């Protein structure tokens, strides 16, 4: 009798745990099904459909591979991929600078928390403000760069409106706003590098450069890998800065600011009747991201050290 009661009580408790657990855990899962899974399925379907107007799905028609043909046959799409990759040059530069700065911050220096605090500020700064800030700096008629170079109205360089300099400027802006995140992550990673390795190396007479390349660099390689992977996924979806700097629907000089997401945005929300082809372009981009990430993971086996 007593045993049975105890058994009942235990199963009841288990059941309670099962129900409350399910209930608690399901909130984000339900959200994901409604706002993630459902749209994802629709996206896959839309890529093969002609959707008239601004997304009038009730009059959509099956279009086979037409959308893909249109996107892949559009030289602007290929240009947008090239533009995106060119802007992504800022990523490796960001990672290297972040590592160097974070490494210097581990040295015994005064005002460390001040420097740390300053370096992180660009991270909380919105891309809109960053764009406006750098438009001021690169401005042809009153910008500080042209003024520093001693140029006059006639010789002033149109940094952001000339195709030769536009991408370079965007890379510089990318570096300015992109290092903060890496500095914080490397800062955390560097404190976790095994101290006894340095002492052993010192005993063996290794210099600080050898220590850096043989101990520090492999020690923080998981962080480098993380920054590279997430950074690439982000860089392939760059949008705000070129959109703001281009001004409205224009995409910079010679369309150099037309990134892939900008291209998709224009098809979907600026042009008419192009929701389907926008979905096709987004699908191509997702596959591209998947491939790049997979390559990243495969290559990482060669250089990332998880000890």
């Amino acid at each position: 009798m007593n045993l049975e009661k105890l058994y009942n009580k235990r199963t009841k408790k288990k059941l309670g745990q099962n129900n409350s657990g399910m209930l608690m855990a399901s909130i984000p899962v339900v959200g994901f099904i409604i706002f993630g899974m459902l749209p994802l399925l629709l996206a896959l379907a839309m890529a093969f459909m002609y959707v008239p107007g601004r997304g009038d799905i009730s009059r959509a028609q099956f279009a086979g591979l037409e959308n893909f043909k249109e996107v892949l046959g559009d030289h602007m799409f290929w240009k947008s991929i090239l533009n995106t990759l060119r802007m992504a040059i800022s990523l490796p530069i960001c990672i290297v600078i972040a590592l160097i700065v974070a490494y210097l911050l581990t040295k015994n220096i005064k005002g460390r928390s001040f420097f740390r605090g300053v370096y992180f500020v660009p991270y909380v700064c919105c891309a809109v403000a960053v764009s406006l800030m750098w438009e001021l700096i690169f401005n042809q008629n009153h910008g500080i760069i042209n003024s520093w170079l001693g140029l006059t109205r006639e010789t002033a360089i149109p940094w952001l409106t000339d195709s030769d300099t536009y991408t370079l400027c965007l890379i510089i802006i990318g570096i300015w706003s992109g290092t903060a995140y890496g500095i914080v992550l490397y800062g955390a990673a560097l404190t976790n590098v095994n101290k006894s390795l340095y002492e052993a190396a010192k005993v063996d007479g290794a210099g600080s450069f050898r220590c850096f390349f043989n101990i520090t660099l492999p020690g923080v390689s998981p962080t480098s890998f993380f920054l590279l992977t997430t950074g690439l996924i982000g860089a392939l979806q760059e949008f705000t800065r070129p959109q703001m700097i281009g001004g409205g629907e224009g995409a910079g000089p010679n369309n150099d600011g037309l990134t892939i997401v900008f291209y998709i945005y224009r098809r979907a929300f600026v042009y008419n009747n192009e929701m389907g082809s926008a979905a096709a372009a987004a699908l191509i981009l997702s596959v591209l991201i998947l491939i790049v990430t997979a390559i990243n993971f495969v290559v990482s086996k060669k250089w990332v050290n998880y000890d």
Partner: protein
Amino acid sequence: MIKARKKKLNAKDLIGQICIYTALIIFALWVLLPFSLVFLTSFKGIKEANSLDFNWWPKEFTLQGYEKVLEYDMGSAYEGVPLIISGFINTLWIVIPSTILGLFSSAISAYAFAKLRFKFRDKMFSLLLGTMMIPGTILLTPTFIIYNEIGWVNTPLPLMIPGMFGAATCVFFMRQFYLGIPTELIEAAEIDGMSYFGIFFKIMVPLSVPALLAQALLGFIGGYNDYLGPLIYLQDPEMYTLQIAMNQLKSYFAGRNVPAMMAATVISIIPTIVLYIIAQKRFVEGVATSGMKV
């Protein structure tokens, strides 16, 4: 003898130290100079700001830029309130409720994933992790169509409701945090007859306040700085968030009144910077843990 050696070492260290400080100061200037340029330009007169004859310090110190921005109330949601302030209020209305509710959803499910046993737990968790793999861009057009069908376009709802269900990344980090809390604590509370919801609210939440704060700050900043979402869904200037209002201010002021544009920029970044200064430690913690998932 020992003293002399120490001195020699110090000389060598000194050179190294000077190099390190120089590098750190140059990098700090690289970060700060653009800010100070924006700040100082916002106090210049229109003519001075438009001249190639550049000065850091404004020759004549004027607040006309700020006045012009705070006079511009076209499309503002409230009568007589400048567009930039109405944008700021709209942003807060959109971001704060969805951040708080979203954090609650994420935290309670993180607790369940970390500490409770239930059916399909691991399957549900891997499903959630799968969401982190989906690039946001692919959802751009289908979500627009769905929200259009249910009449959410040109309302703030698409920017608020999905976030209230929590975010996979946040669930993941909170789960990591809750895994570190000893299970004995929960068992003891269970014996005392506390319900699982009670345990969450009375034990888990108080223990995780710092982690929750860090996540809340990151969520708030993310929402505050969001650009693409409001750009697509808010067409009526009365609903514009701060970022989109900035876009409109830019098309009005750029080329016409540079100091006013810079004044708007200063106003737009002040809230996040103040928040950052107040809660610097939490911010950095939140960001640092975001990199620990590898």
